């Protein structure tokens, strides 16, 4: 019996990269871990796993019914695991309709919360969904925004309520007893050894420098992109060429119009200020 390590983030914030780093660090294998083979990435919102565990088709259940069941599913996953389970989450940290936390603190070993500049997320999200930047911007600002949950042909994931980007950040940072360790995507890129080492330490995972370096090599953007090109990636949406697109910091400067930047900063100022994405006067810092 073990517990859960939640890897939580708004989409397009480096969640998969972080999980692949963790899997490679734990595996300590001679070859990089398969991006489609890691169990953790299957558990969070994946319908297939939920359907298999329930014995029912999750698409036959309402979102409220699923919400009540999810904490129990995760608790069972924790009980069945001999080592901590790594579970990807994009939901805001919230409670189900019965008032129970979706992500029970009592089965939580730790939570890695990854935050990324919403200016860069906007660009990345627009590409991911193949939509206009304005639509992506609206998604980031929408307090009721949700993904997944479509039945039938597009229904690989159950519904997940994200809320707005800053609402998402607040929900996780204010959640009690989740043993949070916050990581900035920009630090993962700019100072990978230091950032990932600290995170591994926070999770109680042995972190010799050589092991960290190998895990970083095996989960590098080039490695993940290469695997996707050769074998595909189960989380790449239909019609999208690549899930691992650029992985750089500050690409928003080449893409977003001035008014789009201004609107994102106005909407999400407090959270952006907290993570030093903007200065006190609203000037972008990253």
């Amino acid at each position: 019996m073990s517990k859960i390590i939640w890897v939580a983030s708004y989409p397009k914030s480096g969640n998969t990269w972080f999980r692949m780093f963790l899997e490679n660090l734990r595996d300590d294998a001679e070859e990089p871990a398969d991006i489609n083979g890691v169990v953790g990435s299957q558990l969070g919102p994946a319908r297939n796993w939920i359907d298999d565990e329930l014995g029912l088709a999750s698409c036959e259940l309402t979102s409220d019914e699923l919400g009540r069941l999810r904490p129990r599913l995760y608790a069972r996953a924790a009980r069945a695991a001999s080592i901590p389970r790594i579970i990807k989450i994009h939901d805001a940290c919230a409670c189900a309709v019965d008032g129970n936390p979706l992500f029970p603190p009592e089965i939580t070993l730790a939570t890695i919360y990854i935050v990324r500049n919403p200016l860069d997320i906007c660009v990345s999200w627009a590409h991911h969904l193949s939509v206009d930047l304005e639509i992506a911007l609206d998604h980031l600002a929408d307090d009721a925004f949700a993904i997944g949950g479509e039945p039938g042909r597009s229904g690989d994931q159950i519904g997940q309520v994200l809320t707005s980007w800053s609402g998402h950040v607040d929900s996780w940072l204010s959640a009690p007893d989740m043993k949070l360790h916050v990581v900035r995507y920009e630090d993962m890129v700019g100072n990978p050894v230091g950032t990932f080492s600290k995170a591994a330490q926070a999770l109680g995972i042995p972190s010799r420098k050589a092991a960290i370096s190998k895990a970083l090599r095996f989960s590098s953007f080039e490695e993940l992109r290469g695997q996707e090109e050769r074998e595909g990636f189960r989380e790449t949406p239909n019609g999208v060429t690549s899930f691992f697109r650029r992985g750089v910091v500050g690409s928003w400067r080449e893409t977003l119009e001035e008014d789009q930047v201004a609107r994102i900063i106005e909407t999400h100022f407090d959270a952006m200020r907290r993570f030093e994405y903007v200065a006190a006067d609203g000037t972008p810092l990253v």
Partner: protein
Amino acid sequence: MSEYRAYGIDIHSELPCPELLAGGGTPDLAIRIGTVPERLEKTRDQGVCHQGAPHDLLLHIEGIASYRISDGREIVIQPALHGDEGSVRYFLLGAALGVALCQRGLLVLRASVVEVGGEAVAFVGRPGSGKSALAAAFWQRGQRVVSDDLCVVSVDEDRPAVVQSGVPRLHLWAETLTALSLDHTGLQRVRPQLEKFALPVGSEQPTAPMPIRRIFAFVDSRAEFGCEVATGSGKLLPLTKSGYCLRFLKGMGCGSQHFLQCVALAQQVEVLRIWGVKKLGSIGDLMGELEPRLLG
């Protein structure tokens, strides 16, 4: 008490089930409203929604009902205080009935089945893989729908496998109905909160069991569309993984039964694996790929 016939058995039910075809005769399966225990004695396996014991299963759908299915002969339903009747019947005629049929020694697959040239053709796969949509497309082209969602097969190594006639309707999402140019206005929702509807597709009389010779298995893959005849374990795996009551088999002690039945079925039928269905543009494109293999 209402009398019905479905999947080759006679059913007597205290709960009216207008979805089922009228029947008569000595009941093989009795459905009654009553009290369901909190726990089963001799529980061998349990999950979030169920407890399983030898030939006994407790299924708990919170807010809807609890169902106790015993020996394939009785289903007791204890509706929740505010459970809507449509949802109670939905899980009765799906999960609970599937368990009862499995307990009766039948092979129950998650599949939609159509008749082609006097034989049954089944489309097996995960929920949401497009089985019912494909069956609907064949129905629009004049093929008869034998059953949807539950594919009930009588099979052993000594006799040809036959599919039992099921409920004459297809459960389709609103977007699928639209894609098929079908109007869902006037159709019954399968559950009040879902945009999924029951499309009547058959006669009012149950039909005889039908031999099955071919199964199309939707498999997970990230590749472009493909279809190939499966061989060896490639035939068996899609069948074993498509068990309707897969999660519940262990507790009921039906795991070996399911496996052996799938082995016997795989020896008698052609299995074609289909993948990359989502990369096709439409159901019409899928029909274009499959129709020549089926009807040509």
